[in-house]
């Protein structure tokens, strides 16, 4: 116990020393630590702020508090055994994380996924996207000070969690999309339940809009706050709603089609400066709400046209793909999840690399934070939808 205390004090002094090494404050500047435990950083993120009162000069991001070495674990477990770890890479959009890994390994081992499994994958992923956007927008609204929309949206998310529980037994980390297909089938009653729930949910999105999206105080807090231009967004490799809010029309589901997305008819919303400049925080907020509506459309089409058939291809118990490498891109709620799997012929991967959207979104925060107030920094972190486990893996 005593040793632990000494170690903690040493660490604190080391952090302070490192802080001072990073940046020497001049004149009236203050060094404030928006520490790992903070109500508004989404997860365990640490920012060292150099501020002059309320306006910041610099915000240095320190990540790594949630580093669990998932990529190293990927070299120690078998292919099938690694799928639950991908859940924990991004627990709010776990289905897409599962799907990325499964797609990469299926490319390596040349496994053909049956069509019903593909439809089930789409249904699961889109439901998960709705849930994740509800949390993202709700948390952002709560950071801005509106407590009520958060609770309303989480109430709707509870229904999604219940549907997922009926589908695959878990509410948050599903381990549902396995290599070669999906784990459980979706019966007729569950399909009807989902359709009835979408009937209930779509008018609710209008109600939520009425509550918060057009509220003048809310718009004034978010519009024109740190707009990101399209070139910056591409140079910093922002993905997903962050990229589309800056005006770049790129969506993996339409441009690099995977699974059965090419069979569905849906639009890709692009930010166009709804109440401010293109690419500001308000654009990102509204874009997620528009994406929720598009997801409802995809869900209806998928549930209506789902064929019968197998849900899992014939894969051996221990998958031993031939030597080679494969990449897979999926559009998760947070953007493009990029998986790069290298195999050396044995039953365990040689290298699994996961490039997550929140990692690159964190790197742009330091660039955006010059001359911005601390209250705006909270809005920026919320609008970029940064989830800590994705950043650190």
């Amino acid at each position, binding site marked *: 116990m005593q*040793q*632990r205390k*000494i*170690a903690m004090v*040493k*660490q604190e002094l*080391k952090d302070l020393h*490192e802080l001072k090494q990073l940046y020497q404050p001049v004149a009236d500047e203050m060094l404030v630590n928006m520490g790992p435990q903070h109500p508004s950083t989404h997860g365990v993120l640490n920012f060292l702020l150099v501020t002059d009162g309320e306006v910041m000069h610099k915000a240095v991001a320190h*990540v*790594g508090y949630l*580093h669990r*070495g998932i*990529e*190293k674990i990927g070299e120690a477990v078998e292919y099938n055994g690694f799928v639950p770890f991908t859940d924990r890479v991004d627990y709010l959009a776990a289905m897409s994380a599962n799907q990325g890994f499964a797609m990469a390994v299926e490319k390596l081992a040349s496994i053909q996924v049956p069509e019903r499994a593909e439809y089930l994958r789409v249904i699961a992923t889109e439901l998960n996207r709705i849930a994740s956007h509800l949390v993202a927008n709700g948390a952002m609204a709560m950071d801005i000070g509106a407590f009520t929309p958060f609770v309303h949206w989480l109430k709707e998310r509870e229904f999604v969690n219940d549907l997922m529980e009926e589908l695959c037994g878990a509410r948050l980390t599903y381990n549902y999309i396995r290599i070669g297909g999906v784990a459980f089938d979706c019966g007729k009653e569950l399909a009807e339940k989902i359709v009835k729930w979408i009937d209930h949910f779509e008018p609710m999105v209008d109600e939520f809009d009425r509550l918060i999206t057009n509220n003048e105080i809310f718009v004034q807090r978010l519009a024109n706050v740190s707009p990101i231009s399209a070139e*910056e967004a*591409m*140079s*910093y*490799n922002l993905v997903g709603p962050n990229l589309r809010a800056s005006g*770049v029309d*790129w969506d993996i589901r339409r*441009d*690099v089609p995977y699974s059965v997305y090419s069979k569905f008819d849906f639009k890709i919303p692009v930010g166009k400066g709804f109440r401010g400049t293109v690419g500001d925080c308000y654009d990102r907020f509204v874009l997620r709400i528009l994406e929720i509506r598009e997801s409802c459309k995809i869900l209806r089409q998928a549930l209506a046209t789902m064929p019968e058939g197998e849900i899992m291809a014939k894969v051996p118990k221990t998958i031993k793909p031939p030597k080679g490498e494969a*990449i897979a891109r999926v559009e998760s709620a947070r953007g*493009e999840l*990029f998986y*790069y799997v*290298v195999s050396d012929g044995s039953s365990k991967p*040689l*290298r699994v*690399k996961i*490039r997550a959207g929140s*990692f*690159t979104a*964190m*790197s*742009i925060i330091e*660039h955006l934070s010059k001359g911005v107030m601390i209250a705006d920094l909270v809005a920026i972190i919320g609008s970029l939808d940064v989830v800590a486990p994705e950043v*650190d893996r």
Partner: protein
Amino acid sequence: MDVQSQINLIKGKFPNEVLENFATGTFVNAEKLKAICQFCRDNEELSMQVLTCMTAVDLGDHLELVYHLISYSKKHDLVLKVTLPRDNAVIDSVESVWKTADWQERECFDLFGVNFKNHPDLRRIMLPDDWQGHPLRKDYTPPTEYHGMSHTRKNPLIPEGQSATTENSNG
């Protein structure tokens, strides 16, 4: 534009630097990597605006750096690979070409020990700054303690003097 014509385009500008091809891209020479990346981004037919991912693979006797490039306007992608020796892995940073390389290279340095020249701020990102070793290398052994906190601990379920067997393991 398919992969082969992209490689040919690069070969046209850098004839000696493009080494062996493979299905999705090509190996290039480590010294000219930055210039090739700059060319890939600025050339109009390639216009690789985005560096999607930059990582490394430890292949036992050497390290391989992998760069995944993609173009949103032309909708094609390319993979560039560079071979580096394990002991002295040094390469130019491409941070001036794509800003995202800043953090991705920091991660590569942290986990593999690859040194990037001309990087604005090369320090560890995931692990604490005074960590010894580079974890994702194949010959990495985790330290037994860190600042007095031990890395291993006795299993409290096993009685003294015995080792872990299936009888006294928990389920």
